[in-house]
């Protein structure tokens, strides 16, 4: 798959939208303040366990209407890495 856009090109890039979505979801899942989440940190550091991570991929699939590897957040365990992977590997479009 082709990379759709340069992640740093603007605020509305798919990669940033995915990051924002993940921050919001993870803050909700773990009941923590979204501003305390660093996209570069491993998600396990915030207490996201293995099954939560898999469940969250299911939510991502729903949101993006796309089939993703269920272990995506195990293999790319930070928000930054996961978002970059999705944009690089999949034809992601985010409204």
């Amino acid at each position, binding site marked *: 798959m082709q990379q759709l856009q340069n992640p740093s090109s603007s605020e509305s890039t798919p990669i940033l939208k995915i990051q924002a979505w993940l921050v919001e979801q993870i803050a909700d899942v773990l009941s923590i303040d979204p501003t305390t989440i660093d996209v570069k940190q491993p998600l*396990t550091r915030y207490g996201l366990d293995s*099954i939560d991570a898999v*469940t*969250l*991929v*299911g*939510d991502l699939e*729903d949101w993006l209407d796309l089939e993703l590897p*269920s272990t995506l957040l195990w293999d790319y*365990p930070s928000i930054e890495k996961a978002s970059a992977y999705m944009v690089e590997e999949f034809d992601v479009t985010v409204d």
Partner: protein
Amino acid sequence: MTLTQYQLAEKLEQALGNPQQADSLMSFQHTAELDEAEQFPHEEIAWLYNWGLQNYYIPTDCGGKFTSFEEFVAFVRVLARRDLNISIAFTTLFWSFLTWMAGSDEQKEKLSHLMREEHTAMCLAYSEREHGSDLVGGGVTATKVEGGYLLNGEKWPINRATISGVTFVLARTDPEGGNRGLSLFMVEKKDLDTSTYYNLPKIKTHGIRAADMSGIGFSDCFVPDSMLLGQEGHGLELGLKGFQITRALCAAFSQGAADTTMRTTLNFAVNRKLYNKTVIDMPHARRTLSNAFIDMLICDCVNIGAARGFHVATDQFSVWSAVDKYFVPVTLEQVMKDTSVVLGSRFYMRDEHDSGVFQKALRDSAIISMFDGSSVVNLHVLILQRRQLAKARVRIRKKPEKLAVVQDRLEQSFSLSQPVPTFDPTRLELISRGADDVMQGIEGTIAKLEALKKSGDSAVDLLRPDPAKPAQDVLSQVLELAHVIREELDAQDVLITESAFEHGHDQSFESFELAKQYCQLHAAMACILMWIHNRELAEMGDFFAKGEWLVVSLHRLLSHFRMTPLLSSGELPAAYHENVAQELLRLHKADKMFSIVPFQLAQSQLAPPPSTQSSSAQSHPNQPSTQEATSHATAPEPQLI
């Protein structure tokens, strides 16, 4: 004629003999003695290897004879109805599926050889004393060194930790690796330096007292690279997928145990006279047992459907196996408790009435709902997927082409006359992405029932032996109850979709209750699917075809949901209950499995030979006589420590 996939179970039955006869290999008396002595059943397990049963755990492309999980669960029931010590100890062989799933060709060949030729047994070393079912939190480490890894730490409690040749060990290979920091090893103990590992003492347990329930510890234990199974870091994924396989198979242990508690209770109830009446003729006892039998048939539909579905809807097994592993053992535990009321105080005795087999089966089976993920773990797996299941069901209803594919898959999963495709473990997925054919097929199944009803003089009527019980009535009732399933599922889906979703381990008590209800609705659908796809199959018999059992089953399952009458006609016809009781007594008298597929069990040597309809009377071609087998069985397993 018995369905092909049940013939192996019949052959094993005949080879083992009637367990009520004290001189049979795994008689209730003998297995009770082993249990009382807390003595591992070495001889009986050696007999099973000599008989060649291990071959049916090895796929044909790996040199074995395994082709179908439906066949597998049938023979596990044959073992389990005799003794859970033996069946659980032998069936740890199903962990070999980890190797069939993820091993290299060389590893597969090696394990196949070990099982077939050297009669090696195995155990699964995941749990740890301090971490329970929290696999990621485990403390056993595997540190990379030149040419291999050094294992350190203890696994406990592990079934067959001591008496096994191969140990599947889950260990952390990367301290910072999170969910990808665990790896799985297929450790052949004979290749280890014996000074670097040790076994923990046998744990005294409430049931399966003859089991080797112990543990294993490692101290800088070197394991070569060749023992790593799959990729480094993929241990958790493999482990969780492996559980999907074994969870569904565990239900067969409970089914075997429930068959025995029912059989021994009937041995009492048909002979015992009180107040000038036989116990079985007393209304309360009769209905208690016929209801218990219905619950057993419901479990059959769930577990046989799942066993076949493995081959068809493999990627949905995070849902199917969780339903099966929760629903079947828990339902059958209740069946045993209900049945015990009829047996009375004898259910509690250790050396009376069929060698005290009731209390033993009750004790032994109590662990099944805990094995390989407890009931709570399985419900949790469902809760986490429940919202997606609800959403996916809404989506798929708008896509007729996808619904048609669901119907095709359901036919393959539930139609017992159809061969199943080869099981492909690489199709297992950690989540089902909202798919559950059984529930997504509800509208299509209702449409089929309606079409059957409309056809009026359909094949159903031709099968009807008794004009007083018009099959159209049965169809109408099944349809009414199928609509109740749909209404309840719709209501639950809306509730789930609209309510706040909790992740992780903060699930409410109510969420667990909803997950239990999902299992009951799934079970109800499995019953309808089993009937609709097999009612014309001659091998299933008239009782199955008439479908009264189905109406009673659905009524029992759905009565948990509503206080108001489920049927417009009011109560269930009394004749339905009576016909269920008659079938139960018929199977008991004929020594047949209490099942929707009532295959022939070993009969007493004094009893008349099995009917000519059964192919079961022939002994296994490679089967030595019982006398020979017993003498072979004196040799201990070569791999045992």
